[in-house]
């Protein structure tokens, strides 16, 4: 009986010890998110057939949960490109592209949103471009 009590104490102690899991409790700070798109500049112009390269790095002081990139026509609001990725890192490389197939002059809006968590903490970077046939 003594042996069973000892075993029960060992199991209970092990579970209690292991249940206290340390965790990073850094509060969400969207202003600490850095979005560095090296291949795009605000106000850039593109022509039909050009490739719009979206390359760069998103970094944060702790773990990011994901990001989305959207390119849309400012005049119609139509989505031309959309991409999202679920990640688990403090540094996320971006490498996507879109070929301009528009046959009319339009103003394009590029929005990159980095998400810190599922509670709506996020950071956004926007660019405006011109597309000309």
């Amino acid at each position: 009986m003594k042996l069973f009590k000892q075993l029960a104490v060992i199991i209970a102690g092990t579970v209690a010890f292991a249940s206290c899991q340390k965790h990073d409790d850094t509060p969400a700070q969207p202003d600490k998110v850095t979005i560095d798109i090296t291949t795009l500049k605000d106000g850039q112009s593109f022509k039909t057939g050009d490739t719009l390269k979206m390359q760069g790095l998103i970094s944060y002081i702790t773990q990011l949960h994901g990001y989305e990139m959207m390119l849309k026509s400012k005049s119609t609001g139509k989505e031309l490109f959309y991409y999202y990725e679920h990640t688990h890192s403090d540094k996320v490389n971006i490498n996507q592209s879109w070929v301009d197939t528009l046959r009319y002059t339009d103003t394009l809006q590029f929005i990159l949103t980095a998400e810190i968590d599922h509670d709506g903490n996020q950071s956004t970077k926007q660019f405006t471009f011109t597309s000309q046939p």
Partner: protein
Amino acid sequence: MLLACASARACDVCGASGSSQGLGILPQFYKHFIGIQYQYRSFSSEHPGLFENLPKERSTEYYNTLQLWGKANIGSHVQLFGFLPYQYNNRVTDTGTGTYNGIGDASLLAMATIIRTADSSNRGIRHILLAGGGIKAPTGKRTTGAGNGEMMNIQTGSGSWDFILSANYTLRGRNAGFNTDASYTFTTTNAANYKYGDRLSVSLNGFYWWRINSFVLQPQMGIRADYALHDYDNYSRKWLNYNTGGYLTYITAGAQVYYKRLGLQCSYAIPVFQHYASGYVEATQKVETGLLYFF
């Protein structure tokens, strides 16, 4: 116009990582055995949309494990168990199927006999308590992207060295008995600094047996509980992943049949209480079957 679409290559709530290795009811009438075991488990998973505008991601995970295992008695007090699994895991989503297959993580357990009713005893009730520990080696195959949260729970191996504590107790009367089995797995980080949560498994089974000529039939029924701590996406940074870990409790029913040196085992389990991956993962069923050869 080109509309490039979404990509979600990481999923932290898909399926449940490796179940702990239980020994169950072990016949002690031969010193050694070698066996092959097949286990099937399935889970349905749901991941909240990354952004508000995105739908929930749903998937079903199927785990198939074919395992070679065996026992060898070393002297009269130590029993050595070895396990070598082969995994064939599938993840089915609305957009496709991902298959992860290959050798899993091999493990070795050394169990000491702590209590055993002497063979010469005339008492009607006999019992045996085994306790010991072991190690699980990172022999399993992993995809190259594993380590950044990519499908961590469906890989064929954890990539880590883990340590196991185990105890197994059986009490037998004339034709009936019960067995309880407990194991705790202490996990370590893998090369990507990912750490699967420690796991505790406990089972309690009642059994009965009949001898009919050279056959022994042993039906059994019981309950099994698996409890897993949360995983760490990055252990050194203490990035705890709350969408992992939890508990699964199964009701199990099965039977063992023995004929001379051969044994056949099968069992079916359905979950009765569960809260896994913050409720995003649901276990559906588990089936096990195996053949043993005693010598």
